[in-house]
């Protein structure tokens, strides 16, 4: 069952950063590159924002003079560049074991089962996810259904043409929260209440102004230790305090506040800062073991798709340098 394949570079994650790295490595003349993606399509988070008539364009292409596009369009433009290379792409493929020193990975997918790979260098471009309710530290109470993350909201609205709520409360006031409010409004919901534990929205004024074209959400900064989710079966509101300040809703979206997907780094016992989960990287994006690199939103912070793409290219240059050094 176990056959061993060797690659010059294995990239984990086919979002903008991983694709950026793959394209740049290929342009630098590196042969035998493998790109591993666990979902069924490449493009990462942008690919979830489908192109729809009258829909909200949420991705700004700064390199093209700041034109807003749909995430899907951006993902497709990356795909077009990628298919011109001879990068080996594995979809629906999960990395399940890592031997760091040997730079050996075990992967599985529904077509080949479990396979082992080795590489001269590995780039982790695993992206990030939104913090769970508990990780945010100020959301307590009940655990009903219809408390969604933005990713789930996109899967429902864009992926399945379903509207998961009519009167949304959005937790998290960064760009993702305002984009979600616009998305919901266009899909048929009322203007959202955007709630965060800060006095002013984290989303910039210019960005908020952009989304006003579609929706006028109400921002509610809360100055309490915690709020409680209410609802025995489905989410029915948020209680601000014991005295009964209560905001009714029929669904909650938990938005933004990204944390790096560093579990593969932990699996390989590469150094990761806790509790922030940021992988420890030195100069040239090298992680705590030689030959292991990290790129894109996995590095931590909150970056747009295009930044990740260009960051992937920068990391690729660092990898090319690393590969050209005598061992």
């Amino acid at each position: 069952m176990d056959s061993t394949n060797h690659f010059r570079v294995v990239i984990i994650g086919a979002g903008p950063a991983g694709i950026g790295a793959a394209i740049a490595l290929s342009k630098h003349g590196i042969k035998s590159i493998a790109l591993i993606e666990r979902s069924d399509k490449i493009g990462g988070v942008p690919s979830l924002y489908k192109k729809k008539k009258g829909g909200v364009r949420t991705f700004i292409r700064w390199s093209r003079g700041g034109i807003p596009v749909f995430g899907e369009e951006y993902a497709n433009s990356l795909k077009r560049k990628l298919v011109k290379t001879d990068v080996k792409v594995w979809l629906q493929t999960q990395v399940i074991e890592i031997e760091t020193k040997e730079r050996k990975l075990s992967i599985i997918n529904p077509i080949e089962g479990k396979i082992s790979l080795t590489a001269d260098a590995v780039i982790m471009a695993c992206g990030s996810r939104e913090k769970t309710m508990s990780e945010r530290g100020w959301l307590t109470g009940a655990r009903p259904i219809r408390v969604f993350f933005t990713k789930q909201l996109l899967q429902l609205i864009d992926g399945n043409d379903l509207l998961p709520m009519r009167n949304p409360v959005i937790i998290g006031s960064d760009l993702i929260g305002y984009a979600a409010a616009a998305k919901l409004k266009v899909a048929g919901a009322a203007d959202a209440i955007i709630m965060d534990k800060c006095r002013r929205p984290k989303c910039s004024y210019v960005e908020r102004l952009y989304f006003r074209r579609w929706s006028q959400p109400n921002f509610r900064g809360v100055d309490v230790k915690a709020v409680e989710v209410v609802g025995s079966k489905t989410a029915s509101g948020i209680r601000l305090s014991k005295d009964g300040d209560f905001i009714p809703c029929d669904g909650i979206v938990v938005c933004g506040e990204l944390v790096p997907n560093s579990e593969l780094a932990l699996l390989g016992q590469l150094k990761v800062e806790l509790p922030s989960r940021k992988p420890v990287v030195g100069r040239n994006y090298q992680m705590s073991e030689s030959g292991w690199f990290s790129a894109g939103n996995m590095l931590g912070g909150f970056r747009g798709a295009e930044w990740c793409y260009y960051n992937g290219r920068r990391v690729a240059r660092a990898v090319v340098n690393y590969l050209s050094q005598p061992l």
Partner: protein
Amino acid sequence: MNTPGKLLYYWPHEGLDDSLKFNDISQLGENPYDIAIIGAGIVGCSLAYKLSMYKLKILLLDKNYDVGEATSKGSSAIIHTGFDAPVDSLESTLVTKASREWPELAKKLKIPFEECGALLIAINDEQKKQLKNVYDKAVKNGVTDIQLLGAKQVRELEPQITDDVLGGILIPRESIIDPFSASIAYSEIALSNGVDILFGTEIIEIENANENIKKLITGSGIKINAKIIVNVAGLGSEQLAKLYNGEPFDTNPRRGQFLIFDKNSRLNINHILLPVPTKETKGILVIPTIFGNLMAGPTAEDFLHGDNSITDTTIEKLQSLLDEASKLYPGLKKQPVISTFAGVRCNCSQGSYWIRCHDGHPGIMTVAGIRSTGITSSPILSEYLVEELSNKCGLNLEINTNATDSRPKSSWPGWWKRPFANGELFKKCPDYGMIVCYCEQISRGEIIDHLDSQLKPVTLDAIKRRTRAQMGRCQGFDCQINLAEIISEHSGIPLNKITKRGPGSELIPDTKTMKNKGMDGLNKSF
């Protein structure tokens, strides 16, 4: 071979295959049940399992839409040795005996189980003095395989714990278990031995309670005949007992909140860490889970019966949990919390293990106050209940030689046996190579296996407890919708009708009943 029992749901909405819907008593046959068990928590499920070894017509019913959906799902998942139980109580007798039975039972039932041991840790002089008392009490409870340790020995066993440690006790047989699999395993075997299981069914009235054949009337007006009734309804038992004029008792639910830490944390701690108990409380524990996480908890908060917020979490208690648990293992504050939950202990003011035969009327048994030790005691408590039913309620026990007392090997949960590591399994079905839950590495194949299993799960939570999908660090960020899509595709139920825990908890609100905007807005935008 036995004919398996029937599994039916009362489900008056869309969102369930018609063949699983309970509409009419004829679906269960006309003959009265020898025994009806009301409440499919750990006690009800283990009783159904034990009784299914005999030639009896048995019904197990619950108002929820899966087994163990109330008290049993929210526990510390510890199999106690009973070292600190009240001496000479029924609880202590059952728990200490059961704890010795569990290692073998877990193998038979295919429930993941690990004898990780516990360390009771004294961190001040007062507590150090108490150690001897704890030790003596354990010996009185028959738990003699324990060891008093000095500070150095404790530190050798757990290098990461607090520097304040002054001494401790090692209790080697304190173990951890998959608490969800326990109820599921018992009831799956019961079902395959012929026990009928009815979900979504609340009993609102009992007629002819004084007669040989009693009539249980469900919320939907269906009458079920049974000769013996056992009330193991947990939080619902007080209300139920009123229907048959049982001896009054007070349910006194006690909430326990927990923090769950990400898996990396368990690399540092191997034992259950216990503080020295005080008269009031057992204190806050640090508990390794069989799934590979650490937990801290539980709190002990008394609630009025019927309070809706009983499984809510609160910030004050969660923060104090972290503070208390950090006194034992200071590194905990650096570990990311992935989730929090609150469970309920079903305490009874009249006493723990409050068991009544011929309660109100002949042939009715009430079991209350199985507070926090139900999973541990279940194998022996159920035996005890069977004896009581036979001796006092006249239940006729004739062994059914066809009955099985174990689950097949294929029942080991996927997260425990890792089916994708098995090349053979993959050749049979490529779905074992398709990972749906990235955090816990759960494949589509495992999810479909469960959807096709005999005790068919129909809700997202029921699937979650069987497969662990959605229980990892991202809490469903990546897999919740994919999981709902798989259920929808496999069962033919539209995606919007998939529920979290039964009717009323649908993924998507019913568009017809929404006043706001209606479908027009939706159509325009797509």
